[in-house]
């Protein structure tokens, strides 16, 4: 083979070898185009603001680099706000998870229209959070609320005679449960529906009691879905703002409310970056919760 023809062959081989790679890259680019609008959206509305918030959180009003806002998170009102939000999220998660799981169990045992009605109602109630929900609770259970007055005038029961107040922690917790329990129904019901009748019947024919079935089959099968649903409820409860803002008169320390106050300009001098640090703290909590969620899902999928 002459040198010219050898070079020609080599260059031809190189071109042939390179072509599929180029083609693959071109194909990758093309498929990438499909998700570009989505990436642009989350880039602009999530990552860009996140970067701005982070940047502002580590600079004081004179644009000097500082960690003072983060240090402040570990003391005073900010620490109390994290504890308050954590407690509210944990309590509402626990109560809503139990109520929602029991509703799911009842729903799968129910046939026909009642079942569809409950699922549809859960869908509606889940999306009825925020100011409309807060207002409806105030209208019903406020000191001058309709239900409060009916209970007082008809049943002579003053619900405000004890510790209850629609505007305190327990009042807000009640309202949170009102949209968290239906949320639990929506996210947990597919797992409950996946319990096969054959498992229960197999348990019976094998000599197992109902308690044995719950202990050895139902609880282990549902545990991953239950835990992951609880984590979603926690994240939802921790970061909810509108309902708490509408019902709270500022006396309840919650992270989203403090961020709202700080963003609205209700800040002391040299504290402009405090809201940003609080927001970063809240994002960190949510990231940790979603990380746990992803871990639970991964482990359960492996089983």
């Amino acid at each position, binding site marked *: 083979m002459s040198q010219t023809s050898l070079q020609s062959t080599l260059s031809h081989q190189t071109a042939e070898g390179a072509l599929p790679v180029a083609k693959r890259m071109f194909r990758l680019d093309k498929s990438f185009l499909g998700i570009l609008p989505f990436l642009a959206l989350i880039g602009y509305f999530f990552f860009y603001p996140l970067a701005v918030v982070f940047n502002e959180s580590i600079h004081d009003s004179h644009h000097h680099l500082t960690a003072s806002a983060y240090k402040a998170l570990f003391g005073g009102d900010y620490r109390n706000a994290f504890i308050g939000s954590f407690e509210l999220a944990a309590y509402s998660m626990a109560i809503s998870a139990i109520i929602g799981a029991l509703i799911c169990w009842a729903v799968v045992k129910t046939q026909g229209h009642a079942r569809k009605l409950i699922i549809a109602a859960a869908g509606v109630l889940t999306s009825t959070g925020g100011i409309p929900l807060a207002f409806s609770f105030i209208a019903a259970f406020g000191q001058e609320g309709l239900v409060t007055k009916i209970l007082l005038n008809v049943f002579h029961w003053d619900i405000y005679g004890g510790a209850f107040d629609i505007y305190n922690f327990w009042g807000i917790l009640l309202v949170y449960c009102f949209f968290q329990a239906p949320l639990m129904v929506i996210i947990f019901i597919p797992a409950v529906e996946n319990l*096969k009748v*054959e*498992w229960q*019947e*197999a*348990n*019976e*024919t*094998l*000599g*197992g*009691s109902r308690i*044995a079935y719950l202990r*050895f*089959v139902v609880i*282990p*099968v549902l545990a991953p879905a239950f835990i992951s649903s609880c984590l979603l409820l926690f994240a939802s409860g921790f970061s909810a703002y509108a309902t708490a803002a509408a019902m709270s008169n500022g006396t309840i320390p919650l992270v989203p409310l403090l961020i709202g106050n700080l963003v609205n300009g209700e800040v002391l001098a040299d504290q402009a970056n405090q809201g940003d640090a609080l927001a970063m703290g809240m994002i960190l909590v949510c990231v940790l919760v979603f990380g746990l969620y992803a871990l639970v899902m991964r482990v359960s999928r492996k*089983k």
Partner: protein
Amino acid sequence: MDIHGSTVEFHGVTRKFGNVVALNDFSLKIKPGELVTLLGPSGCGKTTALRILAGIDKEHSGVVEIDGKDMSSIPANKRNIGMVFQAYSLFPNMTAQENVEYGLRVRGVDSVARSKRASELLELVGLASQSARRSTQLSGGQQQRVALARALAIEPSVLLLDEPLSALDAQVRSQLRDEIRRIQKTIGITTLFVTHDQEEAMAVSDRVGVMNKGNLDQIDSPSHLYNKPKTPFVAGFVGLTNVVPAVAQSKNEVLVLDQVLDISEHAPSLVKGEEVKALIRPEAISIEKAAKGAVVITKSFLGPMTRIGIDVGLHDLIYVELTSKEAKKIDTGDHVEVTISSDSVMVTHA
């Protein structure tokens, strides 16, 4: 393994779902160690009978007995009955070994003893090497083997098989079918098998009961059921049957397709001139090429046999099965002469 065959008896059991009678005055006796199959189309009541015996469904009237003991007041978890379901019955959170151990675990058997028993049973069903796998990691056939081992682990008095092969592909189904029969015979357990697949029923059973609309039409050995069906439904459901109009010529003779056949062995009492139906198996018909007469319309290759559809001037074709070698001589469009062997012809009133 300490399993003995029990006697199972249904006495006039009836079960209704609303206005639908799923099981109508159903009576059946299964002898110790016998494998009886209930065969029938969907909704005929076969699964209902099995579920009532298991205790996971309740009869409206009648009595179910095991070894002479009335089961009416005994809940499913106290009946000591092993059951294999159609599919998806293994607990997904457990390994094959744990699934097999489950019945012993809820009975309080210690872990060493139950582990030993589970290992023996997994060995028996050929899955000893798969014991650590979860159900999701097993094939359909393997799952059903584990389910069988699980059902046998509790040393049940009766084994119930509710269409356990229906979700499997043909080859696995055939293998597992033979294996179920082998294991059943080895341990001698009384077994009630439910299926809609007549080939499956014929292959594994000591006796087959054909069910139709909640009634047990006939129960007999597979060969008797095939050769001596008592009703057109049984004849039609068990194997292929040509139902041909016929006219009684005397008490023992009928005119079928221009042939007078002596059916004294099988006939109900006939009255001369009575219109009846002749039930003729494909293998009871022979054909020969002719210049005129019936016409071959279809020819279906079935492996060693070939099924030929012939137009004899009736509303439906009649079917004949020939060896594929013989069938090579016949083509669609050929005229043939049809001859019926009277030995295998049954007659029912029209």
